[in-house]
């Protein structure tokens, strides 16, 4: 059994390394300026992002993601709880939520520019926030709806005031699902950030992508793609880590039930 375990761990490390080696070997063999060698990309990555252009391009992108996500979280939970608690609110709002959540984000890019008279941070943050809102909102509504009605009724019959009920019962009970929505939104934030910056901007990771495309510079372009991949991965890992800490009580509870 332990031999099998060792094999598993060995494979888990060996296969990614083999893929990277294959990438390097293939690009060496191809010898094309469009597909530079992996080693060339990594050197470029180090020169660009560690850390000479980090402040000029990565920090603005991260700020947009952070601000957009923060707005989406506040609005999503703030709207999701009353909508989840009230059937009438659901009847009124769900048609609109269903429409906007199905809207492909790039279709609204030009409209955000016109409506907000901005190609700067306002437009980008608004665009990111708008589309990150829906996973959080829908999951909050679902989370609130799936609270055991007996609990809600009990809290009400003990005359616990509404804001206390929300703070102590509704919010904690819905939090695992809210977290699930937030995790979707983290990935969505990176995507919408790239779209918004690639559409119109003067700095940011998406801008680097656009400029290197326009000037046919393949190596910086690949370095930017690798950076976006790393960014998506790292944000996801950081979020999982934070979620595990914040929701530790929930895992414990679930483990005790099993």
């Amino acid at each position: 059994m332990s031999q099998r375990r060792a094999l598993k761990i060995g494979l888990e490390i060996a296969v990614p390394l083999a893929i990277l080696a294959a990438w390097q070997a293939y690009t060496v063999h191809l010898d094309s300026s469009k597909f530079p060698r992996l080693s060339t990309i990594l050197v470029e990555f180090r020169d660009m992002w560690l850390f000479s252009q980090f402040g000029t391009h990565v920090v603005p992108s991260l700020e947009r993601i952070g601000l957009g996500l923060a707005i989406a979280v506040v609005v999503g939970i703030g709207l999701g709880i009353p909508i989840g608690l009230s059937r009438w609110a659901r009847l009124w709002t769900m048609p609109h939520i269903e429409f906007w959540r199905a809207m492909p984000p790039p279709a609204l890019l030009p409209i955000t520019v016109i409506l907000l008279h901005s190609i700067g941070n306002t437009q980008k943050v608004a665009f990111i926030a708008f589309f990150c809102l829906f996973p959080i909102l829908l999951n909050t509504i679902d989370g609130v709806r799936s609270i055991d009605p007996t609990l809600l009724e009990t809290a009400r019959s003990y005359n616990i005031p509404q804001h206390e009920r929300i703070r102590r019962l509704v919010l904690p009970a819905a939090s695992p699902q809210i977290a699930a929505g937030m995790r979707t939104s983290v990935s969505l934030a990176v995507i919408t950030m790239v779209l918004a910056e690639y559409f119109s901007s003067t700095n940011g990771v998406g801008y680097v992508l656009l400029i290197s495309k326009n000037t046919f510079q393949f190596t910086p372009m690949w370095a930017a793609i690798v950076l976006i991949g790393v960014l998506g991965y790292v944000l996801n890992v950081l979020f999982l880590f934070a979620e595990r800490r914040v929701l530790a009580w929930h895992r414990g509870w679930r483990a005790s039930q099993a």
Partner: protein
Amino acid sequence: MASTEVAGTLPATRERRRGRGVEPVVFVLSILSALVFWELISRTGVISQRDLPAASTSFNELWSMLQTSHFWWSFADTVRGWFLGLTIAAVLAIPIGILLGSSELASSAFHIPIEFLRPIPSAALIPVLFLTIGTNLRSEVFLAAFGAFWPLLVQTIYGVKDVDPVALETARSFGVGRFERFWRIKLPSAAPYIATGLRISSTVALILAFTAELFMGTPGLGQLVNYAQSYGLETQLYALALATGFLGLAIHLGFSAIEKRALRWHPSQRVVGT
């Protein structure tokens, strides 16, 4: 657990009986009031009509657009890019997912590459596709397929891993063959996960097909948006956003219905009052 279900059942059925006639009425009223609100903020100049054409103006534009063959060709192009991308993703992701999900060794071998590639925004590949494959359907389909592949792959792996081991062992001890076990046990129990993956991927594929059209200029609704933007035709932008939104909604509702069907036998659908 039984007591909660009983407690949950009563208000739910009462609620449903009371609300049967009201729901469609509220649905219509809710949409109408949003349209009236849109019309008013534009007509009264809260937001100028140049920035936000009134609802009536936008729908009029959409209506006259629907009369042109140009619109329908673009619409068909977008749907074609979406369909081909999603189909290729499904043809690749479902078998690979089943293979990886069935083998403990294979799934741990590819765990890190998948976790790393999955969150990469496919939109980042646009400049590479633009400069290598070029502005054509192949780029669009590649992008849509690449984006749609990951959610479906991950869902399929989860689905196959979630097969009830007792059912599998029972079948094995009754001498049910490998192939039969796959068709009768593994695939049906993974089906709901695959259906969920398809629903997510169908939306992703549409977003990426549209993105390719908007940013690379491959023919389709995205390209029309690109033109409308360059010529400053604001009303057309709104009409096109509406058209794209309705296409997205149709795809979402269609695949949600498929998902519901696939889940029909699943315990999660049997719970009363959800």
